[in-house]
């Protein structure tokens, strides 16, 4: 067992237990949340450096090697995702220390939050299909808890839809895993392509692939399986929505990339995924344009932007995948920070509803600048972080002459700009209808620091990616190469030490 691989998994769960026990020990769960998330980020960065130095890292757990035991694997893509998970985990844990009220905190909010981080990390690191299912369940049950904790009427309403649809998706996932195991006799993802290619049951393979991609499409929020997301994401506290927006749908896309390109290379995924991705992008952004509350606009934009990542997977060239991965990293950071800023904005204006808020530019120039930077980055304007991923996707679309994809990327970008402009005009420039927009100094000093620090850090991270994209593009290209040429991954897993 490699501690480098296991630590990013062990830390969040140890922290979750500590956060549950904290009230009895006289400690603050929020503080444990921040410390654990910080350690998790450090372990993640350590893992990433190990991958940069030594290539793909794989290790069998529990004393069994592949293909019998469960193997944890960190290739470039997994390492990138784990580091981003660590970054978002820390930023939102800090924000949550001020955002989550005492009742939720006492009911175990921070423990569930850390379990969610652990579940996401596990999903990114596992090399076993059934284990992937289990990590998705861990993520899901933690997200259920976060979804309903302290819930009023709206939260319960959103939770019912979120939970019903997500449970059905995981059942499909399980059925697909069962079929695949029946066909191939193994569940180690690196062992599956060879074994599946040797079986002669196209119908069963097709059924398993259909169930699996259907389940992952629900998780990723792809059209037309996305209804749970806009029904639920605006109901819990902002910190919950931000971590959901950062991790849940992206874990679905990550699993699609992994499974689609490694396990089912012969399935013509792109033919189905291309129209689905374009429909997701276009309809998501149109849905956003119809909303008039900041957090609902942002929720619909999650869908539209997941479409970009699915588009990269549909084109499936190394450039398109690199673009999708770069876009995913950018989007995780910027989407979450927009939610965090929207949450601060609501504290200052009293409402998410654009008609009942305004005046933030006059009341709080600092918040306005943060929002503007994040919003322009989200719309994909140069030189912000969203630009580079989109540029790579457009180039990839031109290479394979998929003009519909290019038209969708550019058109949806324009609509995204429209939504961001709408928030800017109505939430920031327009005077508040009641003249009640307060400045940041109206917040208690401690809460102000906790709320603003993550916003500054994440906007800063987005600016760094935008202005100094070289290393990030190189990392995304390395991750994309690992997806299109899975042989090194397969060799690393099948020869993994115990």
């Amino acid at each position, binding site marked *: 067992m490699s501690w480098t691989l296991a630590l990013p998994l062990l830390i969040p769960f140890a922290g979750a237990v500590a956060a549950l026990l904290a009230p009895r020990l006289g400690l603050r769960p929020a503080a444990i949340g921040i410390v654990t998330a910080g350690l998790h980020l450090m372990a993640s960065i350590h893992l990433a450096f190990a991958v940069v130095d030594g290539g793909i890292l794989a290790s069998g757990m529990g004393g069994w090697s592949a293909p019998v035991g469960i193997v944890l694997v960190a290739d470039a893509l997994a390492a990138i995702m784990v580091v981003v998970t660590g970054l978002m985990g820390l930023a939102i844990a800090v924000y949550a220390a001020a955002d989550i009220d005492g009742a939720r905190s006492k009911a175990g909010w921070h423990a569930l939050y850390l379990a969610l981080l652990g579940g996401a990390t596990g999903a990114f690191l596992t090399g076993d299909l*059934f284990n992937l299912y*289990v990590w998705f*369940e861990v993520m899901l*049950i933690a997200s*259920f808890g976060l979804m*309903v904790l302290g*819930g*009023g*009427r*709206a*939260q*319960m*309403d*959103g*939770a*019912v*839809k979120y*939970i*019903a649809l997500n*449970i*059905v998706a*995981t*059942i*499909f996932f*399980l*059925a697909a*895993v*069962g*079929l695949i*195991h*029946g*066909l191939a006799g193994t569940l180690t993802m690196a062992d599956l392509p060879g074994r599946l290619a040797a079986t002669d049951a196209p119908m069963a393979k097709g059924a398993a692939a259909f169930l699996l991609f259907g389940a992952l499409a629900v998780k990723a929020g792809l059209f037309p399986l996305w209804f749970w997301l806009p*029904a*639920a994401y*605006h*109901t819990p506290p902002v910190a919950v929505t931000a971590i959901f927006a950062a991790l849940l749908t992206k874990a679905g896309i990550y699993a699609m990339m992994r499974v689609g390109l490694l396990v089912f290379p012969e399935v013509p995924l792109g033919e189905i995924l291309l129209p689905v991705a374009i429909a997701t992008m276009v309809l998501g952004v149109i849905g956003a344009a*119809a*909303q*008039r*509350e900041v957090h*609902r606009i942002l929720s619909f934009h999650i869908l539209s932007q997941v479409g970009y990542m699915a588009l990269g997977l549909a084109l499936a060239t190394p450039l398109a995948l690199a673009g999708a991965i770069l876009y995913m990293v950018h989007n995780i950071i910027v989407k979450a920070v927009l939610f965090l800023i929207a949450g601060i904005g609501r504290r200052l204006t009293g409402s998410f*509803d654009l008609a009942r808020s305004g005046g933030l530019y006059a009341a709080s120039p600092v918040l306005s600048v943060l929002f503007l930077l994040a919003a322009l980055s989200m719309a994909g304007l140069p030189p912000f972080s969203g630009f580079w991923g989109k540029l790579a996707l457009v180039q990839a679309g031109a290479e394979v002459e998929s003009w519909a994809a290019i038209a969708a990327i550019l058109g949806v970008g324009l609509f995204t700009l429209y939504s961001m402009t709408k928030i800017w005009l109505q939430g920031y420039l327009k005077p508040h209808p009641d003249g009640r927009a307060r400045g940041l100094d109206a917040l208690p000093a401690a809460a102000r620091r906790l709320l603003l620090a993550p916003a500054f850090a994440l906007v800063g991270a987005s600016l760094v990616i935008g202005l100094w994209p070289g290393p990030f593009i190189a990392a995304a290209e390395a991750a994309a190469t690992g997806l299109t040429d899975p042989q090194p991954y397969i060799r690393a897993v099948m020869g993994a030490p115990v």
Partner: protein
Amino acid sequence: MEPVLAFLAGLLAATGVYLMLAGHMLRVVFGIVLLGSSANLAVFTGGRLTESAAPLIATGSSLPEGVVANPLPQALVLTAIVIGFGFAAFALALALAAHRRLGTVNPEEMLVAEADAGPKPQPVVAPEPVPAPAEAVPEPATAAEKERRKAA
């Protein structure tokens, strides 16, 4: 034996889907349970059914002797049953909580989170929430009430 179990899995899935289409949270939960059982059965059957001994390894040996059943699908199903059981319990609790807070068990009528979407708000169909049973401790409504309870 496999065709029988495959048919049974299909029947369970069909019944589960039928129940989930009903406008009642409890039926939806039962539908989820049946659908989950169908998937569990599919996993089990997918792992091949054999007339063979239990996969037990004698002391001092590292391999079982003779033909034994495949233990992996059983382990998978056991995990999935536990997870599914947790989900079912959670979904039931949620159905109860939603019924108490929203006053309806019909997901179609749960429009609180969507009431203010779009230019024309839909009226909330939900009637007055049903009061919680006497033995359940109602949530403290105000900070003052919380203080009073703490003092008591």
